[in-house]
């Protein structure tokens, strides 16, 4: 291994694109100007004109490419290895999808193009709506929301509109204590109060608690099934009965849909509203934090309130002509718009391609293998030398994911879940989701997905074993991990205390000489 004397690599790799800027360099040439060269002063009044240019980097094309390629190398990614981040469904992103999304007919299509000249795009959306509706067992789909949490918000706004339309004013929304953070955050944004429902000893909704809290003032219960423990709630029909019994809607957080495609449908479970995370179950690449898309599907009674416009299909009138697709804006009861235009169409293209590739059988098989992989890894990690430190939270057949507790490791080895996760980085696997769900002490939430081969699961189990074994000998190793990453543990508390959220803000640890090459601009932002 490399000793410091032998490794001359420095800190150059943390320079920002601003710090690589040199006045006068450029990557852009404007096109030749053919119209009269009027000075800007003649075109814009002084009150409107910027006097000091915004400070942007000045860098040539080759050095921009090197900068961002260099940065990319500091990211671990799904194409690099195992990424069992629970609740995130890090399944393979087929390369075909990037190709079809980039076709000029998709990528260069203006969102306000007349429907007449966007028939292909509208048909694709219509077909995707149909497929998603079939998968969820709910007939009416809006593709508009931009991500899961946006879909949740749409769902509660629909619930609100539905109740208001019936003259009912409700104030509460129930969420289980296992719920993802976006659920309660959404409840507040939608103007409701959160009421938490407990979890029973099997990891499902505590029915008694639910019954007690399901009053006439409740607008909705938000649930995911399988839930964030990776467990299917066997009482789902009863839960639906209770919720519907008080006139509330049942909302399905679709983040875990990957467990049940073609096997069990939220609509058949009694859910009124569902969101999908196309960036999870339907393999839109996550992009380091988006883009995604969070379409929703609803039952008949919610349909009138769906966002507008909706993609509709009109059968041909004359013979020979095919059907025609249109955007229907004329939806008087609609809640309106969740965002501009028609949604993240580029995401729809990828997810539609995915559904075409897999078909009915393939989607079901995806879910089956996701569950097989999760249970196999669960079984591997149930080996006594692992499970004594990392027992499973609820010992049942799981669905697509499962949750271990790091309590044993903490109490017996003195290493926390965070330490285990950080040590995994040295093994070149991505750690599971940690400290969620909140219910489980020192939680490790593991979702392998169906696209991982058995060897990767075996390897992960060995990684866990070796970290625990190593900690038995010397817990300091994990406590100070990672060692092999571009940076080691970072001072997050310090970052939050004295936030430096842009170049030049507060104390800038960049090379001061370089900083001088980019003197602060008028706006003070750099």
């Amino acid at each position, binding site marked *: 291994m490399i000793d410091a004397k032998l490794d001359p690599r420095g800190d150059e790799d943390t320079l*920002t694109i601003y710090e690589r800027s040199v006045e006068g360099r450029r990557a*852009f040439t*404007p*096109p030749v*100007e053919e119209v*009269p060269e009027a000075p800007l002063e003649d075109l814009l009044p002084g009150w*409107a004109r*910027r006097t000091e240019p915004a400070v*942007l980097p000045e860098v040539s094309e080759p050095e*921009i*490419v090197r900068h961002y390629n260099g*940065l*990319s*190398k500091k*990211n*671990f990614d*799904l*194409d690099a290895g195992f990424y069992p981040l629970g609740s*995130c469904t890090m399944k393979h*992103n087929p390369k075909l999808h*990037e190709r079809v999304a980039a*076709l*000029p*007919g998709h*990528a260069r299509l*203006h969102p306000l193009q007349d429907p007449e000249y966007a*028939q292909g795009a509208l048909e*694709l959306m219509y077909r995707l709506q149909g497929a998603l509706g079939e998968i969820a067992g709910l007939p009416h789909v809006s593709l508009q929301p931009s*991500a*899961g949490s*946006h879909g949740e918000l749409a769902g509660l706004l629909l619930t609100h509109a539905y109740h208001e339309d019936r003259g009912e004013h409700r104030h509460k929304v129930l969420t289980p204590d296992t719920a993802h*953070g976006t659920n309660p955050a*959404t409840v507040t*944004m939608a103007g409701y109060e959160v009421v938490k429902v407990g979890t029973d000893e099997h990891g499902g909704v505590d029915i008694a608690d639910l019954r007690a809290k399901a009053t006439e003032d409740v607008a909705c219960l938000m649930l995911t099934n399988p839930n964030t423990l990776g*467990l299917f709630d066997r009482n789902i029909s009863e839960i639906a009965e209770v919720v519907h019994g008080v006139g509330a809607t049942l909302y399905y957080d679709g983040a875990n849909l990957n467990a*049940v495609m073609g096997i069990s449908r939220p609509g058949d479970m009694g859910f009124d509203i569902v969101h999908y*995370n196309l960036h999870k179950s339907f393999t839109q*690449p996550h992009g*380091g*934090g*988006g*883009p995604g898309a969070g379409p929703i599907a609803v039952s008949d009674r919610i349909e009138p309130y769906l966002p507008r416009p909706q993609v509709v299909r009109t059968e041909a009138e004359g013979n020979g002509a095919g059907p025609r697709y249109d955007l229907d804006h004329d939806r008087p009861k609609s809640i309106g718009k969740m*965002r*501009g235009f028609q949604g*993240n169409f*580029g995401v729809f293209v990828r997810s539609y391609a995915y559904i075409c*590739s897999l078909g*009915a059988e393939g989607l079901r098989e995806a879910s089956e293998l996701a569950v*097989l*992989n999760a*249970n196999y890894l669960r*079984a591997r990690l149930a080996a006594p030398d692992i499970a004594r430190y990392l027992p499973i939270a609820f010992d049942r057949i799981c669905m697509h994911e499962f949750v271990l507790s790091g309590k044993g490791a903490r109490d017996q080895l003195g290493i926390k879940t965070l330490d285990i996760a950080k040590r995994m980085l040295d093994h070149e696997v991505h750690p599971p989701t940690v400290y969620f769900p909140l219910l489980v002490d020192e939680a490790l939430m593991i979702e392998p997905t169906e696209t991982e081969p058995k060897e990767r699961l075996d390897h992960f189990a060995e990684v866990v074993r070796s970290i625990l074994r190593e900690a038995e000998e010397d817990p300091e190793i994990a406590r100070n991990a990672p060692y092999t990453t571009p*940076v080691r543990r*970072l001072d*997050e508390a310090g970052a*939050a205390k004295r936030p430096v959220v*842009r170049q030049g803000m507060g104390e800038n*640890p960049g090379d001061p000489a370089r900083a001088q090459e980019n003197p602060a601009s008028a*706006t003070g932002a*750099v």
Partner: protein
Amino acid sequence: MSTYTSATDADRKAMLDAIGVGSLEELFDEIPAAVRLDRPLDLPAGMSESEVFDHLSGLAARNRHADSEVTFLGAGMYDHYVPALIDSILSRSEFLTPYTPYQPEISQGGLQVMFEFQTAISELTGLPISNASVYEGPSAVAAAGYLAKQETKRSKLVVSRGLHPHSRETLATHAAGYRMTVEEGGLDAEGATDIEALADLVDDDTAAVFVQQPNFLGTVEELGALGEAAKRTGALFVVAADPLPLGILKAPGELGADICVGEGQTLGNRLDFGGPSFGFFSAAERFIRKMPGRIAGETRDVDGKRGFVLTLQTREQHIRREKATHNICTAQALNALAGVIYLSWLGKRGLVEMGELMARRTHYAREALGLEAINAGPVVREFAVRVPDLDTLFERARAEGVNPGYRLRDTYPEYEDGLLVAITERRTKADIDQLAHLVGAVREGVAA
């Protein structure tokens, strides 16, 4: 067997044995029969890669895209050239496929990109704090409304009719959840926000006032005066801006904006029939702990090496849950990356040159068309005119492969014959002259 999965028959058997069940079906015994689907999904059979490619190519071929016509359509998204280095960088798996950077030690690339992005957005808007992206433009406006609600505890939002119709509608939709009302102030005869009308709507219960720069008609708004009117009673002044012309327009932050949000498509993102692109959200420093979304911050590691982390996370849903400043989780990181690459590509001087070029061509076009202006004042990338025979123009133009722009009557019935014409660096003098010629021909026809 699917080509995206690996489990051979032998693998399956070995894995089921290890689990201790006899079959795949058994794993699903957890699901009660009553809620199990007892039939295959009613979807077509799977297809091979080349078949899917052909199918989607066939669909794509039925769209008339921005390279298959000369388009003056804008109205919120614009046909700018996306430089090739963006494709090259974004296609790298290291940027394309990771999740939100929850493990900073192996996500320094993505985190530093966010930091650089935040810096560039702050530079453009003139506001010192920026997040790492929100979904897109109109929902960014709605997010500003939520901040205003939390900040002021007031219940009214005031918008200018110059705000994009989608932003107004999205804000109204969200406001139903915020339990707030939205009131709208009209435009004056010049197509700018009527400052007095707006001022009249602002009262003690007003949480925020929203205007757009340039506004939907393309008019450059007098932000300074609007901001004064807006802030009289303590409401927040929110500017929704197209970031590209900010290279030549005074920064909203310098003109009193408390918050500046916007649609980022014009910064290196594809049209994509409307998304994905990114929204940006920047604000005055006092809102730093009230911002929605991810924010990257600079720090150091245990060895003292510089690094970046997601910071101020106590604002966020995964920590604060029902008390979060917003519910956003997945945002638009990859699109924001395109944005910061684009801004680096343009560079300090290129941004100005691009703005000047758009402004020059926009003025040239407005004159060349020779039509009555709806907004005769300053414009930089788009303008509205009255076309006596709009439908005839569209018919003729589309037959020639020209898309004249956006018909205002769809969202502004008061401009029944209004046409909104967008100019980018892609629209050459020859394109503009072609449109002018079409307009001339139609007018002659109408006159005759």
